[in-house]
C-alpha cells in the first residue's frame, strides 16, 4: 500500500465530496483522515488516503482528470511516508483574540507564538462587518512545549494584543480523557 495526501479546491457546489470520494473508491483507495471547509463559497478538502501498491501517483492523478473538468476543481496529490509519524504532544492551549479589525492581528500573534516555539495546529478567523467598522475574531489551538506553556503564552500574547488594541484570552485546551 502507498499513502497520499489529496487536496482539492474549487467553487462550492453539490457533488464535490461525492465526486472526489467516488474516484478514490473506484481506484481502490481507502480514506484515512479528511477535513473539508467552505469559506465564502470556496470549497477545500484535504484527505489522507491509502492506495493499492499497483496504483502509481500518475495513474491516480489521471483518474481525477474527468471530475476536475466537470466540477472545475484543482486537485493536488502528494505521496506520504508509509507510516504516519507526526503526532502532537497532546498538550494544547486555546487562544481567543478579538477586537476591532485592523491589519496584522493574525501575523503579530502567530509570529510571537512561533518565536516561543509553539506550533499552531488549528486556526479560524472571522471578520464581522458592523455599522461604522468591523470586528475581528481569531481562535487558535497551539501545541505546547516546555518553553511555550499556557503560563508563558498568556502574558506574552497579552502584551502583543495590548499593542494591537485587542483582547486575548489563553486557556488550557481541555484534552483530558475520561
Amino acid at each position, binding site marked *: 500500500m502507498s499513502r497520499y495526501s489529496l487536496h482539492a479546491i474549487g467553487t462550492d457546489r453539490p457533488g464535490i465530496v461525492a465526486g472526489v470520494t467516488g474516484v478514490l473508491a473506484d481506484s481502490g483507495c481507502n480514506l484515512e483522515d479528511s477535513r473539508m471547509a467552505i469559506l465564502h*463559497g470556496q470549497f477545500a478538502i484535504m484527505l489522507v488516503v491509502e492506495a493499492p501498491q499497483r496504483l502509481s501517483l500518475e495513474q491516480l492523478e489521471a483518474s481525477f482528470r474527468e471530475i476536475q473538468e466537470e466540477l472545475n476543481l484543482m486537485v493536488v496529490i502528494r505521496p506520504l511516508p508509509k507510516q504516519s509519524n507526526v503526532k502532537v504532544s497532546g498538550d494544547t492551549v486555546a487562544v481567543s483574540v478579538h477586537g*476591532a479589525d485592523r491589519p496584522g492581528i493574525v501575523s503579530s500573534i502567530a509570529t510571537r507564538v512561533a518565536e516561543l516555539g509553539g506550533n499552531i495546529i*488549528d486556526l479560524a478567523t472571522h471578520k464581522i462587518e458592523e455599522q461604522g467598522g468591523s*470586528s475581528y475574531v481569531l*481562535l487558535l489551538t497551539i501545541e505546547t512545549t516546555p518553553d511555550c506553556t499556557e503560563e508563558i503564552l498568556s502574558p506574552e500574547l497579552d502584551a502583543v494584543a495590548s499593542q494591537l*488594541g*485587542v*483582547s486575548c484570552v489563553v*486557556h488550557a*485546551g481541555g484534552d483530558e480523557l475520561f
Partner: protein
Amino acid sequence: MPARPIVTVAHLKLGVRCAEVDQIDERARALAVDMVDTMRASPACVGIAAPQIGVNLRAFVIDCSSHRRTTVNHGELVLFNPVVTSLGAVAFEREGCMSVPDLTGDVGRALEIVVEGFDLSGSRIVIESSGFEARAIQHEIDHLDGLLFLDRLSGPGALHQRKVYR
C-alpha cells in the same frame, strides 16, 4: 428609555471586569429598565448584561420564558451583583451573543446552578436554575467578568458561522 446600542466585540470595554453596584437605587433601576428595553428590542435576545449597553457594572437581565429550549425559568429576572454559589455537571451546547454578531460556539456550561444576588428592590435573592436558563445566567455573569463565549471555546472547531456565505 428606548433600547440602547449594543457594545460589540470590536470594543475593548467588553473585556473589563465590572464593578459592583453600590446601591440598588433609582439609577440602578433605570439601568435595569434600559437593559430590559434593549433585550426586548431584539426578538431572539434572552439576556443582556450591563457592559453590553456600555455600563461596566455587575448587573444583568434575562428572560428565557419564551425560548424553545427553556425548561426551568424565572420569567423576567434582573440581578445585581450576582455570585455563583453552586455549579453542577457541565454540558456543551451552542450559544450566541448580541455582542458577537454572526458567530456561535459550542460552550460548556453547568446544567444546574445556584446564584445569589440582589433584585430590583434591593432584597437578597437566591436563584436555582437549570438547563437553558442556567446557561443564560452563566453567559451573562461571564460578561460581568469581561469574558465572551469566544473565550470559553475549546478551539477553532467549536466556532460556527451563523450566516452562510454564498
